[in-house]
């Protein structure tokens, strides 16, 4: 019997600490598969954010370094400028990338740093227990918007990929989703393209991934597809914004 799909060899044999159905696992799986396909498992450096993926180092075989909350793009800037031969993925949550780290995110993109940002947009602060994120949808209930996010008090959710796409330097900016197998394969192709642009052309790319946090959305994983299609994708349209 031939193996047609197997667990990536770039993942370790440690089970993740993510909740059942959490998209962070899917995103990591894709990055692991891509790193094997590009033969960079031993070279890839993974810059972790502060969020549910902070302690992700045991789950895969790449080298990693941590950053303070929101600061990964600046940390990776210093790193990559001094160590240009290493492919670098900056993995960030939506709070990390688009709230506390907005300045670092925008300026790393504006400088066109030679790394790939993957922003996991799950519309909440997962790690701290489901508070409002900069991406929380209007009307969405979180622990800090108990009656639903109001525009009057909180303004509108930020579309980060669009912010990045209006800058000159980024080569490839896209928003993808992880809620169906088809979307997962498209997201994988996008991350792979971004990494190839980094490796071959020293280009900055930004891949926003619409992710599910079933725990803080308080839904069953089986309901993710419907929730995404009904609520999330209409506000965060999918597709390439640049490149």
């Amino acid at each position, binding site marked *: 019997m031939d193996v047609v799909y197997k667990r990536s060899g770039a993942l370790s044999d440690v089970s993740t600490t993510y909740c059942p159905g959490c998209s962070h696992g899917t995103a990591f799986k894709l990055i692991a598969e891509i790193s094997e396909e590009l033969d960079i498992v031993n070279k890839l450096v993974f810059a972790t954010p502060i969020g549910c993926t902070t302690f992700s180092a*045991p789950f895969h075989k790449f*080298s990693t*370094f941590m950053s*303070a909350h929101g*600061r990964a793009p*600046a940390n990776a800037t*210093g790193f990559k*400028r001094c160590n240009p031969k290493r492919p670098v993925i900056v993995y960030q949550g939506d709070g990390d990338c688009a709230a506390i780290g907005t300045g670092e995110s925008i*300026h790393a993109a504006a400088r066109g740093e030679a790394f790939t940002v993957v922003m996991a947009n799950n519309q909440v602060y997962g790690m701290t227990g489901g508070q409002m994120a900069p991406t929380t949808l209007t009307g969405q209930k979180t622990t800090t918007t108990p009656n639903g996010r109001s525009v009057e008090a909180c303004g509108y959710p930020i579309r980060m990929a669009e912010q990045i796409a209006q800058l000159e330097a980024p080569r490839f900016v896209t928003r993808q989703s992880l809620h169906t197998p088809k979307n997962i394969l498209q997201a994988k192709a996008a991350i792979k393209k971004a990494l190839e642009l980094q490796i071959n052309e020293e280009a900055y790319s930004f891949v926003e991934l619409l992710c599910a946090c079933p725990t803080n959305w308080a839904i069953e994983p089986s309901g993710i597809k419907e929730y995404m299609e009904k609520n999330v994708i209409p506000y965060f349209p999918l597709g390439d914004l640049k490149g």
Partner: protein
Amino acid sequence: MAKKEMWKGNEAMSEVALRAGCRFFSGYPITPQTPITEYLAWRLAEVDGVFIQAESELAAATMLLGASIAGARALTATAGPGLSLMTESLSCLASGRLPAVIVDVQRGGAATGNLQGAQSDYNMVTKTLGHGGLKGLVYGPSTVEELCDIIYDAWDKAEKYRTPVFILSDASLGQMMEPVDIKPFKQLDESRFDLPYVIGREESEKKVIQDTPYAGPYSTMSENLDYNYRKYNEMYEQWKEDEVLYEEYMMDDAEYVIIGWGMAARISKSAIRNLRKKGIKVGMIRPISLFPFPEKPLNALDAKKIKGILVVEMAIPALFYHDVKAQVDKNIPIKANLHCGGYLSQVDEIEEDILKMAGGK
């Protein structure tokens, strides 16, 4: 001895940093630090180094962290409000045991303050680097030459101990022109760029660099942090034996002792020379390393011989004064001469204070 050249403090330390192997600078313009940023902008380009004008001090100090993780000899410099923004990364450097050098060209006042020299950042870096209570080596030079000597060796120390090294300069030292020995280039090994500062796990080619030492012999994070920070503390204690630097000036027969550091000490030297002409036996102990603090020479001051101590400091409220007071014999009268906000210590006031102590002679 090499021929000395006239250099301003900021530029001199920048050139010497480069010769010490610094190949990375990230900074954000702020007076009186800006000449360092401007100098390294063109000078690092000449040696294929990396210069980044960051979007903030928050980012500048984080880039420093990244450069250090990468293995480069990295520098940042700031002043006043910029230091507040950098404290996040100072904490990460100290906790992640990452070598890097930070220069604070101190300016007056808190908040926006003003642009003249001061010593009010003393507590902020000698007591703890950012949140969490960890330490780094901290130096307070008082001449351009000393500033250069310290920065020339700063990365050797930083890498030896895997610690941030902090240099407290100030507006006057940065702008002052003095003869210095611009030192020869240090040669560094390229192997340093293979993720040298692993903290956590190293499994063949996989390296894990954490800003917090979670790994250790125990099963819980808290036990491991307790264990690892205890070891850090042993290192800090050992610095008291191995890394203390201070100067004694005219102390052989001194009956009155001025204690100060950096610019305040330098100004005090003029007062000492004037007082000596008047026959007052006054000397000085000048801490150069501010952490570790030179406790022993202060402990050794003999109440039978020393009639008074004057701490000269450019900070209000007093900061350094309390560290001195804690180390000297309680039977020796101690006074402080303080200025702040960019108002430098004054030679005539220092003389007056000592004369008062000496009974109005």
